């Protein structure tokens, strides 16, 4: 039991916030401390507006009172400092000036880092990789041309497949394929070449060759495949030229029927 406990009890009692009566322990404590009894009497008198105080409290009591008041003020300040903020308070705190300054500083550093990372650095290895890729492409073309010159039709078919994978950009490879299309003894190989051209972009210089081959072709199956190739993927000019030239020759009945079916003559 301390002096303050009894004083707090007294204040609460006077304030009618405490219904606890004076305990025996408290009574004994007050009896044992006469200065406390004087202080309690002063508080009681101070609390009551009337009658006014009849005599001035003792100096020691006043000193203790003011000390107590000062301590209480100090405690209040500490409580305010340690107060737990709610989430709303936290959010509001973000928008205070120091916090904003910190955020902008962080954003500036981040943006600077990003911009530094985006700067293109010329890698000396890129040019050598490009050269290597070009070499591989030309080697692939060489391998394809070698396969296209085999005596076995099945190996030539493999060569056509390989040519497609190697890409038909190499003019030597394209010329070899055109020669195969014109002269190969196997219809299967010639049809495979036509299918290979159908899957890649036909250049204008090849279109002229294909038109001539189509007009002069004796095998109706190959001729139909060539017509299909040019009328579906050829340029407008090529289609027009082919149409004009086909009209000047005697076509196989099946070829004529096919051209009518695909409405080739009305395409232009």
């Amino acid at each position: 039991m301390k002096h303050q406990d009894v004083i707090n009890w007294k204040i609460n009692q006077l304030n009618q916030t405490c219904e606890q009566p004076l305990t025996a322990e408290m009574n004994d404590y007050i009896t044992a401390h006469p200065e406390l009894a004087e202080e309690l009497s002063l508080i009681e008198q101070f609390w009551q507006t009337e009658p006014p105080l009849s005599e001035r409290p003792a100096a020691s009591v006043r000193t203790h009172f003011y000390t107590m008041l000062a301590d209480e003020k100090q405690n209040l300040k500490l409580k305010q400092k340690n107060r737990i903020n709610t989430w709303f308070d936290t959010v509001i705190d973000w928008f205070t000036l120091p916090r904003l300054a910190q955020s902008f500083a962080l954003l500036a550093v981040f943006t600077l880092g990003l911009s530094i990372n985006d700067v293109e650095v010329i890698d000396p290895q890129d040019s050598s990789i490009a050269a290597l890729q070009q070499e591989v492409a030309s080697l692939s073309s060489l391998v394809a041309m070698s396969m296209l010159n085999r005596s076995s039709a099945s190996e030539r078919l493999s060569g056509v497949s390989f040519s497609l994978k190697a890409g038909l950009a190499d003019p030597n490879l394209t010329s070899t394929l055109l020669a195969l299309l014109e002269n190969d003894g196997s219809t299967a190989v010639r049809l495979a070449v036509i299918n290979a051209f159908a899957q890649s972009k036909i250049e204008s210089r090849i279109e002229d060759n294909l038109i001539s081959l189509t007009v002069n072709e004796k095998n109706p199956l190959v001729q139909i495949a060539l017509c299909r190739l040019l009328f579906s993927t050829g340029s407008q000019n090529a289609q027009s030229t082919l149409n004009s030239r086909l009209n000047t020759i005697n076509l196989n009945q099946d070829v004529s029927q096919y051209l009518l079916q695909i409405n080739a003559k009305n395409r232009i």
Partner: protein
Amino acid sequence: MKKVTLVLLLSLVPVFTIAAAQQEKQYSLELSEPEKTMRLNVELRNGNVIVEGYQGRTVEIMAKINPLSESELKEVGSHRREKPHINQKVKKSREKSGLKSINNISHSLEIQEYNNRVSINSERSSNQIDLIVKVPMSAQVEVSIYRGNEVRVNNIKGPIEIETWKGDIYANNISGPIVAETHQYAIEVVFSEFSDKSPSSLTTYGGDIDVTMPKKAAAKINVQNYQGEILSGLDSEFVATETIKRNKKGSKQEIIVGGQMTADINGGGQHITLTTYSGDILLRKP
């Protein structure tokens, strides 16, 4: 290398000078290197060819030489030039009454073996030659008949190439790859295995294509025909190939659907392409 040249000089055998007589001859060739793969090349103008694979290490040839009748001869055309060569002296016309025509069957067939390559050639058009050739099963086989009839190949595990104009093509119990072509007739192939070594292709203009694929074959089947049907007993579905071409600037986009129908069996693998203009395509499983 041992070179064996065997040329049939039938004119040296008197019995064969009798006109219109069918002749049957059998020959056996030993290979230069029997432990290695051999290559058979048959080129005929007229005739039928049967090639059988077997477990032996020699090449067995049975040839039947049948002179063509007058009408058949007219159909296939004489080997004589219709117009004489510019440097050839014009022949004086001579009296032929009382003389009978002797069918010239000399140099009808030439068989050669060199460094494990066996070639059987017949260039004259006045005879029909029916061949039965037995070769080791691992042989590479090439058969070309200009105006002949059918070609049959059985029990061959090596690559096969067949070209004929007026006959059916039958291949049974083969592994491939096979590249076969005929004009108005059918192609029938039964695979016992499917080789992934090289692509296969079967092409006919007016005939049907009938293919039986082995159960475990992994293959990509491409089919293309213009007027016939496509009939399949396989479990895989056929889809139309499409080509999507886009202009670089994005102003024109074109999608072309068609060209071929494709199916992957057992996950796909080596290609086999079947092409016919007006025939049907039939795909079977064993």
